[in-house]
């Protein structure tokens, strides 16, 4: 005849209950902490990306302005050149001379220099901020 022997468990004392409770509490706390850290990193990543996108949008506006300004400058230089080559061979009218002088003074000066917005890039350059960006395709593109 088969006899089943049930293992005999002694009654748990209060210390064991407390220890089990503490372990459960620690496990839940650690999970909560890990989740909190993960959410925090994601939040920072998103903030950084939003800042970068805003910088890029601002920069595209500045680039458009720089392109417009320099294109205008280029066409003005073309016009001035066209007149300059006529100086030695023909008598130019006063209005043409005024236009030449205007182009000479207004458009042969400085280039419309584009300076990129460096807020996000400066942050990305610092420490390990770049590692916040978890998406490989995005970090490669940046």
């Amino acid at each position, binding site marked *: 005849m088969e006899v089943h022997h049930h293992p005999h468990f002694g009654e748990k004392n209060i210390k064991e209950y407390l220890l089990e409770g503490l372990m459960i509490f620690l496990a839940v706390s650690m999970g909560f902490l890990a989740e909190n850290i993960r959410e925090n990193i994601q939040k920072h990543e998103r903030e950084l990306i939003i800042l970068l996108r805003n910088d*890029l949008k601002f920069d595209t506006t500045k*680039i*458009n302005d720089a392109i417009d300004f320099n294109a205008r400058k280029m066409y003005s230089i*073309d016009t001035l*050149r066209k007149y*300059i080559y006529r100086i030695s061979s023909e008598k130019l009218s006063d209005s043409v001379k005024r236009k030449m002088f205007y182009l000479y003074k207004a458009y*042969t000066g400085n280039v419309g220099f584009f300076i990129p917005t460096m807020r996000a890039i400066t942050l990305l350059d610092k420490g390990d901020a770049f590692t916040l960006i978890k998406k490989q395709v995005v970090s490669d*593109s940046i």
Partner: protein
Amino acid sequence: MNDRSTNQYETFRQYQVSAKEVGQQIFDPVPGEEFLSRERFPLILSSHLSINILQTDKKITYIYGAYLMDCRGILFNYIRMLKQHKERAVRLIEMLDIEYILEKE
């Protein structure tokens, strides 16, 4: 990008300084006191001011034209570079919008 822009800028400045030196031989630098301010300067076009051309020598004017052409070349390259950077920026913005669902923020 900054380095390339700075190079373009410095190259332009070199040509521009050379062009200015020759330009000063051709144009009277201060033809009218009343048009010196930035705001009033465009009025020169609609004025009756007489502009002195100081130099009509063909050689000088052609040298000036050549410097202007160099400046134009630099501007042309710079504009092309700016357009490339703009395209990259737009592509990156689109990617960030898609990857991080940012359209509404």
